[in-house]
């Protein structure tokens, strides 16, 4: 089918994405090989891979990568476990299912910034209800936002609160697409629910699980809003994430070349994680197909 009108349909979208989304990268790629500082102003100077080298030798960069990965993998893991469990529960037709569904949609449509503000209020050391609850149980006042490990835990909790609904929604869609007859056969053979889950449900939902976890990992790596408001990267730099670090370098220190290099390294980190993830999962997925 050679219809010239097809270009009319695809060109507006293509052009906007190319021009705004992709083309500027060319400029920042060239900047990443230069030494540009606005404060104090210096003329740009070509320095090859020096920015990249400096970053790879920078302890702070590796700490930021570790922190971000830690937040991402632990929060996505918890989201998946809780989300899958709640999806299974909803699927088995609990009373009030409709209401639950609406409620579970709320968090993921809320601005992460607003969620983090509310989180800050809830985890506040003196006026927050979470600490109040723990003191009622006999715990001392817990440093939810002011001590490194507690602060990481708080960020993970807020992430889980906001994004578990996404997992619930998609796993529920997956459950609804499963064929009924397999379960009928399993019921005839007196398989326990536990056996049914591990023998049928889990393996059949493996492809969609893989997709959901993948989307969540990629999305979580972008995290800045929550951290920006909850801890601002602190205490010290212990909760600083990749995006936040790039923002600090670019907009507090105006170290443009370094920041560009950092953002491209970030891209490479995400690509590596994506490729490794797909490579690990592929054999399992192909077996089912």
């Amino acid at each position: 089918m050679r219809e010239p009108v097809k270009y009319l349909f695809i060109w507006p979208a293509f052009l906007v994405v190319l021009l705004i989304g992709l083309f500027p990268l060319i400029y920042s790629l060239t900047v990443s090989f230069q030494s540009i500082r606005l404060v104090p102003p210096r003329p740009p100077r070509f320095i090859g891979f020096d920015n990249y080298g400096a970053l790879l030798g920078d302890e702070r960069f590796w700490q930021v990568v570790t922190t971000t990965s830690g937040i991402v993998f632990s929060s996505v893991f918890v989201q998946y476990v809780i989300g899958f469990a709640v999806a299974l529960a909803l699927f088995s037709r609990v009373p009030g299912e409709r209401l639950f569904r609406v409620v579970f949609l709320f968090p993921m449509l809320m601005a992460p910034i607003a969620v983090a503000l509310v989180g800050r209020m809830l985890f506040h050391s003196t006026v927050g209800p979470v600490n109040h609850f723990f003191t009622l149980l006999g715990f001392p006042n817990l440093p939810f936002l002011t001590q490194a490990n507690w602060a990481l835990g708080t960020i993970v909790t807020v992430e889980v609160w906001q994004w578990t609904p996404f997992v619930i929604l998609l796993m529920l869609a997956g459950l609804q697409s499963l064929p009924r007859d397999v379960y009928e056969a399993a019921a005839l053979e007196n398989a326990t629910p536990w056996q049914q889950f591990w023998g049928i449900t889990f393996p059949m939902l493996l492809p969609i699980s893989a997709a959901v976890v993948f989307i969540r990992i990629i999305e979580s790596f972008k995290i800045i809003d929550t951290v920006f408001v909850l801890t601002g990267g602190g205490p010290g730099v212990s909760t600083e994430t990749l995006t936040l670090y790039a923002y600090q370098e670019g907009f507090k220190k105006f170290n443009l070349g370094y920041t560009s290099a950092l953002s491209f390294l970030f891209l490479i980190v995400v690509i590596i994680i994506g490729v490794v993830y797909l490579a690990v999962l592929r054999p399992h997925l192909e077996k089912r197909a």
Partner: protein
Amino acid sequence: MMKRPLVFGLCLFWALVTLFPLYWTLVTSVKPPTAVNGGPTYLPYIDFVPTLQAYIDAFSGIRGDFISPFINSSLISITATALSVLFGTMAAYALVRFEFRIRLLSGLIFAALAIGGFLLFNETLGFSRAQAMGLAFLLALPACLLANRLPLPGPVLGNNDVLFWFVSQRMFPPIVTAFALFLLYSEIGREGFKLLDSFLGMVLCYTAFSIPIVVWLMRDFLAALPVEIEEAALVDDVPRIRIFFEIVLPMARPGLIATSLITLAFIWNEFLFSLLLTTSEWQTLPILLSGQNSYRGDEWWAISVAALFGIAPMMGVAMLLAKLMRSGLTLGGIR
């Protein structure tokens, strides 16, 4: 499959976990300062006497300007949603109904010419950076289109690869693009055309960033439509454009609404681009919210009102989406 009470308990537990923070924000917004600072209080009329003072303060503007970020956010997100849904749906339609063949090599030619051209115009010929970018684009695009017509060797990409190209934009860490756009916008600003902290600049970047989701979601909705009606119209010589606007779009209405709502929420909530690309005039609500805590300290009643400003419209969106999903719409694109 599982034991009933256990199942219900799990759902109820998670619903409470979900609702408590919302309840807390709502309750805090009507607390007088004494009910906040003296430690947690839970029930209005029992623990404290509710007051609407925080709302009155917010609307009268003595606690900073809430109204203009709200208007900015609304204008920007509605315009960008409309544009990205229009363009994205058109592209999705093209990917569903037509066949595209793109040579990988011509894409590589584009990248090489764009980078090479930029360096050439900027470093060697002495154009400013923004001019060099523009010229490089004007050089690379026609060259790549021309190259696509030639019988070049190498793999040929089809519709799925075009779709992947769109979707892969979403996998990029946004800081990469946001920072690059910041650099580009400030260079263009130096030429006298203001894009940083402007309506146009924000709408452009959000449109570009939402199109991939729209293409991804709408492709599945459109692929599910019956092709026969369109074929009948084609036989009657109705132009494609009219078929698209008068037949396809009305049929895809539920999908269009769902996609628009998701896109709207995405743009409304977006933080990073606004943080980098606005400074004062066109600041959006998330930026205003992010400054609340450091700016106000522990005035949690006022902060709660601010947070509710940001959340409330999306609560409406959530209800609408839930209603759509109940009426048989499954989220497309998710498999």
